[in-house]
């Protein structure tokens, strides 16, 4: 995003009143944090006191006033993760990295934050590093996970990306199986979810073969529509904190039987997906 895009044109006076959060989001996306000079610039352009902009920037957790590290570690301290030992995981990470929650290591490699719920309570305690879910984190494995991230998580995951195999998944909230064996796509039982988009609500089935992308929906979904996914059992929206690496839409997390988590992009036509097996080997 360049300066022209983030600056407000004087021809749109309405945006001057309402666009602060959008402006800050654009700046945050560009720099990874909100530099001081940019806040001064936003205040000047929106004709608001600097303190108002600063107030918004410090109110929302999504904004950071200090530079973030290359890898962002989020440790979940929501109720479910909390009772399963989330705080000890957070402490262990703090000990290993030598920083407190909300800080960044001196070499700008890691930022640590604690979050209140990642929507994967059945997997608690959950730790998310750069959008990858690490389920049921054990204290003894924290060091190992961080080392693996240092070495480069990307390469390690690309290997599994190339394979075609069926997955058996369950809801990340209630852990109820989403598989439906009455229906088959690609010769395997389908994943059944309910979806909502454009005021329409209906059933949708997805191929359980990883990398197949075949879907059948009750209502035809136009290309490029971002669809909300719901669990047909607990009716909770299946949404995690992660954003699609391809298009930026939210990712839909589902638990893989045997351990791990699969995330698919919620935008129709986008092939962004991610499989995180947390070190579990599938034969």
């Amino acid at each position, binding site marked *: 995003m360049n300066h022209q895009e983030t600056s407000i044109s004087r021809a749109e006076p309405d945006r001057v009143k309402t666009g602060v959060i959008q402006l800050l989001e654009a700046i945050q996306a560009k720099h990874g944090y909100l530099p001081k000079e940019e806040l001064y610039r936003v205040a000047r352009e929106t004709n608001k006191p600097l303190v108002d*902009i600063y107030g918004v920037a410090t109110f929302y957790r999504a904004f950071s006033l200090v530079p973030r590290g290359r890898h962002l570690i989020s440790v979940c301290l929501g109720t479910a993760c909390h009772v399963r030992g989330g705080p000890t995981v957070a402490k262990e990470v703090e000990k290993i990295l030598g920083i407190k929650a909300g800080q960044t290591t001196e070499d700008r490699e890691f930022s640590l934050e604690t979050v209140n719920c990642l929507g994967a309570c059945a997997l608690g305690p959950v730790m998310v590093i750069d959008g990858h879910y690490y389920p049921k984190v054990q204290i003894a494995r924290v060091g190992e996970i961080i080392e693996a991230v240092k070495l480069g998580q990307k390469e390690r995951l690309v290997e599994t990306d190339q394979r075609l195999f069926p997955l058996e998944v369950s809801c990340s909230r209630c852990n109820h199986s989403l598989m439906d064996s009455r229906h088959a796509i690609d010769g395997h039982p389908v994943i059944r979810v309910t979806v909502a988009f454009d005021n329409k609500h209906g059933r949708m089935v997805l191929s359980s073969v990883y990398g197949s992308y075949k879907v059948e929906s009750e209502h035809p979904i136009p290309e490029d529509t971002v669809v909300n996914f719901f669990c047909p059992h607990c009716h909770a929206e299946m949404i995690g904190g992660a954003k699609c690496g391809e298009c930026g839409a939210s990712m839909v997390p589902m638990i893989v039987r045997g351990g791990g988590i699969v995330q698919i992009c919620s935008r129709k036509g986008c092939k962004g997906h991610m499989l995180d097996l947390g070190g579990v080997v599938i034969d």
Partner: protein
Amino acid sequence: MITLHINGLKVQVEEGTTVLEAARFLGFPIPTLCHMEGLSPYGACRLCVVEIGQEPNSRLVSSCTFPVEEGLHVRTASRRVMRARKMILELLLASCPQSKVIQDLASEFHITQQRFRQEYEDCIMCGLCVRMCKEQMMSGAIGFRGRGQKRSIGTPFDITSDVCRQCGGCIYVCPACMLRCTYTEPEKAICGGCANISIPCYVKDQFKDMMCYMDPCVACEIKKD
């Protein structure tokens, strides 16, 4: 004109008046902390709660932000209101016991002790100083930052704000910082909680065209002696 009943008395007021203004017009006292004429209503301290509606569907609202409605029944000192007010005062005492304003209010309501964990905060987040700065002084040097427990009032980045004219209006309206404003040493006499710490009156000579809102200014008085 809108007709409403306050403590059983029928009163006619202009549309857009708040319940607080209507009650005070009739002479019913309602204690307030975060309310000040000339500043926008804020509803932060909740001391001005009144009961509206008929039993059993009555509810408590903050009168300073509640506009009058046709046929509204208001009770400004019902048992429920008094109990709520006492609780609020106890909570205020628990967070900011050194404030003279809060102490006076508490004694007015015959509160001799409070049930909560004692803390010694400097600020009750009433937002008077923020509104004073923005609305009357047209400056906007201080404001709310952060949220939740970490919410605080001050300048951006905790450095002296360049739009602050050091008028002292924020200190003048503050109901919590009385102790420091009446302190015996000049350096400590000014609150400075907003990070515009350079003690305006203490170094007044540097600011020839300074606009001081403090009258009398405690720091200046002490310095004279």
